[in-house]
């Protein structure tokens, strides 16, 4: 088991993700957020466990399901929520939206073309290497994305150039309605690391502590300049692909089974068992974060819309 501070830090990250996500879902269903919404609940432990090793200046990239990594990384909650609502006070003044969150304060960016984050994540790693900084670039993507050509190209190039990149694959079993067995010719992407001569690891992504421990050597390795690695974490989308997902394709009982593995109660049990905190301590953390998240919603809802003139700004700097 990890040390007390680590456990509590992981817990805060998990709760921050989950609470923010629930609020976002609520606002979406009220019509305050336009377009799609791909939530991260159920995968919380993956980015919590990985990002606990990262510094704010460590570059981090993700895909359409990008709230989790940004929340885990410690992004600006208010600006993030305002961005989801398309407000001027948002991270990108409303131009990006929920699939295009850019928060330079924690070196974070995401985008919604599947597989596109992997090449982009090589860049900051290359820059760090050339600038002789000991940064680690992390990129989160789905098991669906692992069949995109960019996966191959990016792992190969990272391996060749020994770039400090950690590739983290959320294996949540589904790419929209396509099960992994219909998308991936081998059971585990972690095994594909051998095609690039780099370490690959498989971890239970419903267990924040397990992810934390599995990521540790990989992050350290990258930080020491020993090159990239690939971590695959099994997890699940508790809310389906997006908020309108009919979920008709799920086998009966699958959702319930995975909800039974929820990483939050699991970590709560571990914390209490280890004597790292009491039920009340945890309630206090949850309350504190809930308050914070409520404030983000108030902030976002009361924020102004971007002025029309903004539409033509920033095509070029």
């Amino acid at each position, binding site marked *: 088991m990890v040390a007390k501070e680590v456990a509590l830090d992981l817990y805060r990250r998990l709760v921050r993700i989950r609470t923010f996500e629930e609020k976002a879902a609520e606002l979406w269903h009220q019509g305050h957020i336009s*377009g*799609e919404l791909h939530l991260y609940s159920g995968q919380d432990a993956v980015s919590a466990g990985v990002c606990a090793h990262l510094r704010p200046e460590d570059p981090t990239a993700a895909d359409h399901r990008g709230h989790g990594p940004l929340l885990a990384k410690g992004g600006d909650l208010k600006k993030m929520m305002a961005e989801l609502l398309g407000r001027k006070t948002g991270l990108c003044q*409303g131009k990006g939206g929920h699939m295009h969150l850019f928060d330079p304060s924690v070196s974070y960016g995401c985008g919604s073309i*599947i597989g596109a984050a992997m090449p982009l994540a090589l860049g900051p790693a290359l820059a760090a290497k050339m600038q002789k900084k000991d940064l680690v670039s992390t990129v989160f993507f789905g098991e*669906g994305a692992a069949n995109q050509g960019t996966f191959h190209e990016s792992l190969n190039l990272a391996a060749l150039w020994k770039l400090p990149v950690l590739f983290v694959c959320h294996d949540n079993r589904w790419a929209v309605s*396509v099960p992994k067995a219909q998308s991936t010719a081998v059971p585990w992407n972690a095994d594909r690391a051998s095609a690039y001569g780099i370490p690959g690891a498989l971890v239970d992504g419903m267990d924040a502590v397990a992810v934390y421990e599995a990521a540790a050597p990989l992050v350290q390795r990258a930080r020491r300049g020993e090159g990239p690695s690939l971590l695959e974490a099994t997890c699940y989308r508790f809310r389906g692909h997006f908020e309108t997902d009919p979920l008709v*394709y799920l086998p009966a009982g699958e959702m319930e089974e995975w909800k039974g593995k929820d990483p939050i109660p699991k970590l709560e049990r571990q914390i209490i068992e280890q004597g790292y905190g009491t039920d009340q301590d945890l309630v206090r953390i949850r309350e504190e974060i809930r308050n914070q998240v409520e404030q983000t919603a108030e902030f976002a809802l009361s924020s102004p819309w971007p002025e029309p003139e903004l539409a033509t700004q920033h*095509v070029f700097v």
Partner: protein
Amino acid sequence: MTRELTFAEAIHEAIEQEMIRDPKVFVLGEDVQLLRHPLLEKFGEERVRNTPISESAFIGAATGAAYSGMRPIVELMMIDFFGVAADQIMNHMAKITYLSGGQLRVPLVIRAACGGGYGDGAHQSQTIWALFAHMPGLKVVIPSTPYDAKGLMIQAIRDDNPVLYLEHKLLADYWLGLLAGANRYKDIQAEFNVPKAGTKGSVPEAPYTVPLGKAEIRRQGTDLTVVSVGVMVHRALAVAEHLAAEGEGLEVIDLRSLVPLDRRTVIDSVKKTRKLLVVDEDHRSYGLTGEIVASVAEEAAGSLDDFKRVAALDTSIPFSLALERVMLPSEESIEAAARAMLKRGKGVSSRGGPKPRRGR
């Protein structure tokens, strides 16, 4: 028999009828077993194939299958995603017939959703049809009504060339519902100003085709030619109705396909009205608006007294509805442009008596 069908039902019916008629027709793409579930039920997994997220591989495979005797309908989900397979589409699918000296034919339809207006952000709202129209070897079809949706799809499937078939998400209700979340709006159609005539209309049950490359004059008029495609045709028609009340006669032309392009219909109309307004949901520069005015100017520069374009701005598509509204053409921006042109025309004619008809 003619029934009222939705735009989406019309496309489905076209594909289903063609799949019954021709066993070589099959469907592949991401999530097609979910999105096209009725086809899966009817035709089975062999002919309705889910793919991994590997657009280069499965679009290339579709091309190869097409020149090997099959007639694939390959779904690219959204046209925004074309970039991960652009080489397969533009350098191979589009060129193989030509480079083989006509020996290989590629009877294939790429079906993709396109268009914005519901606040879904930059990678899910583009139309970018000009990119494909610029590259020789692809036909580019953009239906705007259920009737055309069915007839153009059947024609596209029967064509022996690759056809890109773009369905706008504001017209295809399942897309809009999935992406914008139908159940949270009292009236999602009203929310996003969905054009009724585009989403539901009369569709004959028996298979029929609409030819590629034949524009449709949706409304006759003598004062101003408005050329458009897709959702913007409906926006233009709404403006035309509005201005008709003030006695202005707008002629609204729906191109229906960019390749082949029915230049004739446009030129003839402009010769009559002497004024051209092109409305395009694609980016303004280096696109459809330019091609249309070039076609007119080549043949009849002297007939063109005035030209304007209302198009998506040359920016990425902003997520915020407050900005997207500014970035995409709207009834307001179309009306403003049309009014400015009509007024200008009036100015001239009031100064100079009858509208001058200048020959060469």
